[in-house]
């Protein structure tokens, strides 16, 4: 069991009587990259702000490296580097002055460290220019440099890809992976799964202020249940026979082929894959002509969309 860097327990926040975050719990262990996903307005940013003590939770606790953030912010936050939403720095100061400013807020950061983080984010050439002349990508990098200053154990990036062009996003991904390889533990939030899917070891999907799903990609897909695709020569008869087993649910039916007598059909069903052999035997005994059987795994993207969109539309 690896050391738990971040532990969030039963975190809730009510603002003006409205519950924004509702009983959210998750953990982050050393060396992990956690994707924190959810559509806009799901409560991601509010949760992240509670992690870094910008917002006081109504109930629940956040513990970073064993220190409760709400009661001992000084001890807890020294292990955290964060960018909450946009990487806003002082525009009237140079990048270097900004880093000096934040370095002064923590012990043990010397000029060598400032130079080090500057070169980590490859900002050496422009570090002595005023931040207001920076592009968004450069500001993002300066923000990360700031977050890295205090040699954190946990790096929190809220929507880090917002406003970046594809090249910038790609660079950022490479960069995040590199940081994780160096042993940093990251929490990356996004409203777009595709942007962080390849990056993260585990995901927490939040929707309507609640944790909708959590786990590794495999776990998430397994929890969604297996789908099995059937193909029958005679759709009507085949599906009727198939559904006689109550453990099998029909998700979708697609008719195809000649409509002359009885059209052939594909049936997408939710069922355990252990049931396949006996079902095949049962259908064959019942005279159903099976043209094909195959397992179909939903992609994480599909899952994410069904999980987060169903309720939005409803």
């Amino acid at each position: 069991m690896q050391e738990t860097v971040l532990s969030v327990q039963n975190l809730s926040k009510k603002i003006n009587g409205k519950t924004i975050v509702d009983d959210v719990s998750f953990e982050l262990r050393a060396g992990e990259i956690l994707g924190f996903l959810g559509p806009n307005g799901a409560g991601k940013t509010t949760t992240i702000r509670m992690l870094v003590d910008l917002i006081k939770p109504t109930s629940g606790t956040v513990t970073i490296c064993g220190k409760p953030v709400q009661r001992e912010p000084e001890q807890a936050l020294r292990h955290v580097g964060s960018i909450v939403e946009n990487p806003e720095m002082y525009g009237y100061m140079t990048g270097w002055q900004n880093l000096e400013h934040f370095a002064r807020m923590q012990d043990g950061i010397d000029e060598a460290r400032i130079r080090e983080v500057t070169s980590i984010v490859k900002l050496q050439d422009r570090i002595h220019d005023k931040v207001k002349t920076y592009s968004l990508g450069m500001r993002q990098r300066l923000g990360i440099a700031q977050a890295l200053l205090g040699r954190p154990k946990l790096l929190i990036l809220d929507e880090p890809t917002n406003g970046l062009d594809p090249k910038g996003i790609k660079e950022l991904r490479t960069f995040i992976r590199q940081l994780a390889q160096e042993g940093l533990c990251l929490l990356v939030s996004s409203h777009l799964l595709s942007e962080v899917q390849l990056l993260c070891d585990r995901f927490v999907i939040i929707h309507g202020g609640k944790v909708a799903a959590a786990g590794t990609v495999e776990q998430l897909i397994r929890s969604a249940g297996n789908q099995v695709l059937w193909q029958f020569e005679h759709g009507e008869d085949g599906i009727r026979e198939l559904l006689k087993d109550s453990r099998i649910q029909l998700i979708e039916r697609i008719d195809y082929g000649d409509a002359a007598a009885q059209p052939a059909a594909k049936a997408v069903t939710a069922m355990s894959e252990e049931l396949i052999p006996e079902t095949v035997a049962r259908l064959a005994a019942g005279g159903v002509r099976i043209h094909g059987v195959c397992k179909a795994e939903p992609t994480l993207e599909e899952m994410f969309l069904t999980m987060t969109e169903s309720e939005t539309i409803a």
Partner: protein
Amino acid sequence: MLRLAALIQNEAMKLWLKKRFLVIVLILLILIPVFTYAQHKMVKNNREHFADWRNQTLQQIADIENTLSSDRIPEEWKKGRRIAVQQLRYYLEHDINPSEPSGVQFTREFLGNAITLFIPMLVLAIGSDIVSGERTAGTIKMLLTRPVRRWKILLAKLLALTLYVSLTIAVTVILCYLISGFVFGYGGFGAPVLTGFRLQGGTVDAQAVHAIPQWRFLLMQAGLCWFASMIVAILGLMVSVLVRSTAASMVTMMAAIIAGSILSSMSSTWTSAKYLFSVNLKLTGYLDGSPPPIEGMTLPFSVAVLSVWGAASLAVSFRVFTKGDILN
């Protein structure tokens, strides 16, 4: 403790790099010569008409007495004029020129006039966005996620502000002296100034009146100016904590200060207005014995009222800043 020093350095650096102080020095560099020129014109005019300052003072007294006989002037105003006459007479009796032109005298007059409006505005120009500016720019999110307690950050901001308020007063005095001294001469430190007038109703109690050298008077004025400015700065800090937008916080404070100066000039019969902070800002008035905006106000009273306002807004600022959620 070392950390606090670093935090103050941060805040002082931010204020410096925002170039606010530079703007203030520029404003002073433009305005002081303008006032100096106006004063110079007046002095020249008086020299042409009067043989010496005694004639001039006598003429002043005669002018005021003329207006006193007019029916159209409200009784409230007359009270103030009568006091002025008595003071001028007192100066004459003691053979002291109430306004011997010099660099120091100009500075004294300038401070006396600037304490209610001009210097508070300069102070607000520096400090009114000290917290709201960080909110508007979003930098507050980075500032408050660092491992530093929020009260320390606000304290550092307050101390940096104190530093700049002190600098503003010092620079105002120094620039006034240097610029006006070029015209009126750099002397006047030892010139006697009368202070200690006690006002009772419409008469002046001259028992406690004594002359002090002008440099001491100026120093006392600067001290009172500093105190009044600090109260304005602290109130500005509170508004800056409470109001998210920089423009709104600036306007709120300006409105409060201007309202006070309007109320003072109404020499109002609404006596409870004396508990408003901005009516009490003209602390230097108590030194030269000009009548207070509302009867019964004294220097200790005004200092007490301002202190209460300052303490209350500090309490509100720290409470809200340390407990409040950062939502924007």
